[in-house]
């Protein structure tokens, strides 16, 4: 079953065309890594898929629901407000710089939406939270505030926050780019564990070996297009396209 489908997605900022017609699919249980140089459109792709940017044209569906479609005249039509809320509940996004709520404890960061959006009782939400904290290796951090945690711990809290609402698909926008090298390990391990549980994920990353190990498939993006796409190990070890080769040679 396709959990994410994008067809011919285009997006420009003023005169700059950042996405020049991107098409991709992600099936249930699959892990897709998106790699490529900065400015190649990776983050914009992710932001369009997660409703943070609106596309100029193209088709996107998440979990079988159409987020945006384009008519014969080239005009894009987004789902209505109600539907958007429903679609947003189907996925989670882990930001590069965490975007935790600094005034909330770790526990409230994870449970606030469960209680006030998903109308769980406090006890139910706490139970979900406790399970996630164990999974993230943060058992004792429920009452801590984000500012008292290391970057790696903060990122794991934000993964827990994204997982709390039980999404069908999880997006990661360079989850380790803001972290010191020694802190990335814990975060990558958590994502690896999720992959083993067959969590559907789309990961924009600069960690090539991680992408090779965890992803089923890799997309190499440059200049607003998908330059090369293939099974993870093959694309990393045996790239066909010259631009892919040149990019990977830098690692």
């Amino acid at each position, binding site marked *: 079953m396709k959990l994410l489908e994008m067809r011919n997605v285009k997006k420009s900022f003023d005169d700059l065309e950042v996405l020049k017609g991107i098409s991709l699919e992600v099936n249930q249980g699959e892990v897709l890594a998106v790699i490529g140089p900065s400015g190649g459109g990776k983050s914009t792709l992710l932001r369009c898929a997660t409703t943070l940017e609106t596309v100029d044209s193209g088709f996107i569906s998440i979990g079988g629901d159409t987020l945006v479609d384009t008519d014969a005249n080239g005009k894009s039509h987004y789902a209505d407000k109600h539907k958007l809320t429903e679609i947003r509940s189907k996925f989670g996004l882990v930001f590069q710089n965490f975007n935790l709520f600094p005034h909330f404890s770790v526990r409230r960061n994870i449970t606030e939406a469960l209680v006030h*959006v998903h109308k769980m009782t406090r006890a139910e939400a706490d139970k979900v939270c406790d399970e996630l904290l164990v999974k993230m290796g943060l058992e004792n951090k429920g009452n801590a505030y984000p500012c008292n945690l290391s970057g790696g711990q903060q990122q794991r809290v934000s993964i827990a926050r994204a997982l709390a609402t039980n999404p069908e698909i999880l997006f990661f926008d360079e989850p380790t780019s803001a972290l010191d090298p020694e802190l990335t390990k814990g975060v990558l391990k958590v994502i690896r564990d999720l992959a083993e549980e067959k969590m559907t994920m789309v990961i924009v990353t600069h960690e090539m070996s991680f992408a090779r190990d965890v992803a089923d498939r890799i997309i190499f993006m440059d200049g607003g297009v998908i330059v090369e796409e293939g099974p993870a190990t093959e694309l990393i070890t045996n790239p066909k396209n010259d631009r892919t080769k040149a990019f990977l040679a830098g690692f």
Partner: protein
Amino acid sequence: MVTDMYSTFLQLLDGFKYTLIIFGATLLFSIPLGLLVAKGRMSRNRIVSGLIRLYISVMRGTPLMLQLMVVYFGPYFLFNISLRDLTIGNVDYRVTATIIGFSVNYAAYFAEIFRGGIQSIPKGQYEAAQLLGFTRSQTFFRIVLPQVIKNVLPSVTNEIITLVKDTSLAQVLAVTEMFTAAKGQASSQSSIMPLVMAGVFYYVMNGIIEIIMNRTERKLNYYN
């Protein structure tokens, strides 16, 4: 001498009631109004934000004393409506006009402080909240506002302290707040003592405010 001082003290205390009323009512009205004005100032509607901008610039660019006079005398001179006998409860229109003038003026200052505070919240906070399913008002009241309060507290303290001293401007509408009382006593006794005592009143009140606000700031320091 001692009885003089005691009777002066009682007179000032009597006036202090009005000082407190003006102070309390102004805070009560101007802070929510300021929040609303800040929202309007940031509105994407050009007409709304333009009008609010003009309002803020007039409020900040003209003397508060003049604004008080406009609120009090304006209705009569502009529309020939006399509000002089209008009492709300047992509050004289002089006091009502003072509170209106102060609230509208302070709302403009608070609005600019709040705007700065709201705009300092990173875009990522809104994005995270939106994707988690929070509505716009939940996002504002649960995520944004608590952080704004912490950010703006020092500037708000400044305004509150200024307000305490500004209450003395109510004398232009012949409201017998503390400073008016002190001036009366000073001239009838030909002594500077009542004015000094008034100064002590203001100073003590501001001292208390500072203590309260410092405590609040410390309380909000659980994160940074």
